[in-house]
């Protein structure tokens, strides 16, 4: 069963990688105007009216002529690739799910008892969050390239460097709090992952809009409009932050039962606190008119950096009470 799970994970990564390729094709063939136009339409549909007081609903900018046959052909390829990318993402997601389920059966427990399984689960939540997001807001589809990129990188590191054989839980983890605390932490991390992608792309799009022509900013040409991205970034974080808070509170309750204190500045606790404070800072900064939006978005990126330090730095390099990585 464990071997099946390992195989399935490889196929899941492959699925995401192919999806990434398809997103890239869409990205390459989707003309700037198409993306921009879709973004514009989206803006009108979702929040346009709240942003434009008084005037009748803004008129969609007159569509650029699609007369050129090459352009139409490109748009067709892009649309096809985009839909294919979504299907491939969904296939990858199903394989990913199967990998986790088989892993759980192999270990006779919830499949998040060590670092390998934790990252697998975080990526699964990230993929789920992405599919939910793109279903609800199809205009965000260009983000898929970057979401799948992060998924492939994380899962690749996970499978190649952090692989751990199936083993029962160490006694300290043998508690129903594992299901509550760790599930909440995984959910928050997975959603923050998508939030990070949205935040980073918001900054890239901002830079592109400001006329920057260096490498990462050139990617901004085919992204949805900056304020649409920015609002998405906020809403993802506003969803994940309470989950993260809940994870920390549950961790404190568990720590009280397991270690005799609800908070002890264990390195993992410290970095969870750091990430929580940074994300709290992001939500506050975004709600403060005197703080410019890009500054706030940078804070969200810093929050993800703290999450990554917490995941990799603390697990691999610093010993503490949370040393369950299962790696020696």
């Amino acid at each position, binding site marked *: 069963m464990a071997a099946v799970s390992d195989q399935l994970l490889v196929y899941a990564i492959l699925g995401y990688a192919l999806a990434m390729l398809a997103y890239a094709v869409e990205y390459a063939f989707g003309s700037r105007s198409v993306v921009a136009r879709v973004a514009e339409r989206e803006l009108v549909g*979702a929040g346009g*009216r709240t942003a434009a007081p008084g005037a009748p609903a803004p008129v969609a900018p007159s569509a650029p002529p699609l007369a050129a046959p090459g352009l139409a052909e490109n748009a067709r390829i892009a649309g096809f690739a985009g839909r294919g990318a979504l299907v491939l993402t969904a296939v990858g997601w199903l394989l990913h799910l199967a990998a986790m389920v088989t892993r759980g059966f192999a270990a006779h427990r919830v499949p998040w008892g060590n670092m390998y399984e934790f990252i697998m689960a975080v990526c699964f939540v990230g993929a789920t969050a992405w599919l939910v997001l793109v279903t609800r807001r199809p205009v965000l589809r260009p983000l898929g390239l970057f979401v799948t990129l992060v998924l492939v990188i994380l899962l690749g590191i996970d499978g190649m460097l952090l692989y751990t054989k199936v083993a029962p839980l160490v*006694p300290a983890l043998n508690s129903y709090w594992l299901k509550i605390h760790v599930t909440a932490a995984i959910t928050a991390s997975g959603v923050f992952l998508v939030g990070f992608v949205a935040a980073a792309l918001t900054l890239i799009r901002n830079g592109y809009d400001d006329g920057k022509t260096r490498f990462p900013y050139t990617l901004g040409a085919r992204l949805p409009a900056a304020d649409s991205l920015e609002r998405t970034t*906020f809403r993802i974080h*506003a969803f994940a932050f*309470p989950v993260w808070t809940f994870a920390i509170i549950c961790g404190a309750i568990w720590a009280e039962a397991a*270690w005799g204190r609800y908070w002890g500045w264990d*390195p993992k606790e410290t970095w969870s606190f750091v990430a929580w404070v940074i994300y709290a800072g992001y939500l506050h900064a*975004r709600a403060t008119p005197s703080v410019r939006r890009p500054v706030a978005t940078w804070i969200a990126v810093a929050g993800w950096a703290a999450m990554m330090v917490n995941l990799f730095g603390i697990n691999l390099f610093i010993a503490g009470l949370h040393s369950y990585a299962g790696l020696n």
Partner: protein
Amino acid sequence: MSTVDERPVEAAAPPPTPGPAAGLVALGRRAWRWLTSMRTALILLFLLAVAAIPGSLLPQRNLNLEKVRAYYTAHPKLAPLLDRVGGFDVFASPWFSAIYLLLFVSLVGCLVPRLRSHVVALLRVPPDAPSRLDRLPAHADGLALHGDPAEVAARLRAVLRRRRFRAVVRAQPDGGFTVSAEKGYLKESGNLLFHFALLALLIGVALGSWYGYKADRVVVQGADQGFCNTLQQYDDYGLGSRVGPADLEPFCLTLTDFQARFLDTGEPADYRAAVSYTVGSGAPADAVIKVNDPLRLDRARIYLVGHGYAPVLRYTDRYGKTQTIVAPFLYIDANKTSSGVVQFPDANVDPVKGRDPNDKQQVAFAGMYIPTSDGTHAVSVFPAERNPVLVVTPYRGDLGLDAGIPSSVYTLDQHQIDTGRLREVGSEPLRLKPGDSARLDDGTTVQFVGTRPWTALTVRYDPGEKVVLGGAWCLMIGLLVSLTGRRRRIWFRIPASGPACAGALSRGEYPGFTAEFDNLVKEVQ
């Protein structure tokens, strides 16, 4: 807007008034404004995050004293400098405290006015419609509302109230009416709850550090090895600043049984310690302490934090007197290779003449206990007792226990050995399996009877915990309410004659706002 409403913006300083006192007041006021501004709070929040980082990178005294000592050895120059700035006690250091205390002062300074204005807003009726509704983000003209303006207004108010808006009708001087409605007060309530819950957390933590305590004790299995919750009986303890020795919960406890299961890889699978305890003069009770499952008394909790083996030695001295001593050995690796010493301070006392103080013939056995020996190395290969061996060196002489100086029960007094007052017996250490006996050079015998398990227990009491837990759940609820709440106002203007109009305003992010407004406008027509 979403998590917070605007903090007071840094207003211009009040006009300068003559006199140094007034200048001071102005300065103070400016400092207070600066401290309670959102920008400062954000900076403090960021500083708090940054300040916590060294606490995870440097060894901390409250987590692991050993690592701090190791750091001192590894970096003899740097360590004292770091120590001077609180590098090994980050979370108790003045600068860390300064940041969070300033943050909390800033928080209070911001919360109190916000609470006041929120209470006012809760008591106040929604304000009258602005003169130009068409300037609002959402508005509708020429509404088909027919009938007497007063009746229309009353009907609108009913519709709005049904949708849980707070609505009020005002008669206008021109004979028309306006309906003002507001909803979403919970958002600010949740927001305030979240921030006040943070204060509750701080108070709970403070209560815990004043009235809580923590104490550690190694308990060997057996009715003769129990302990009571008094400071003398602890190996180590830390009392809160307002806890006296008399405040400790009066319980006594013995370890009746201990079971550990291990996987074949040597990783632990399960621990459980059966204990018997009494509280005060109450009847004895039994309980099982497991990892994740402490024994909870009214004013104390007892945790299982470690376990090991305590070899039992029976020594028959030259006068034929037999004594049995059990001594816990401390494990030094995950496979429970353990080191310790079994001391017989009352051995070899002449029953007629008594002890000669200048020629003490006390006996001790120091060395290693190996629960699963591979037969050659002095290192255990498995944490359970599959092939136990005790490898100890006998010592005879003055153990140095009578000097009244507290000493470790896990090692011999090195000073006594160095000064020759305590001497090794024989050239080879003894290698004993359970049941084995050995004869020393003076004809005395020692038998390795077997081992008893010991557990390391931690006793804790933290009265602030309930406050912290309550605060944490309030924080969670406040956070959810403030992130999901949507504050918005809707106005209808019904002139004495002619078509009515409506407008609405949302405070903060609310994507469904226009849809809700359109829906409402459709419903009332």
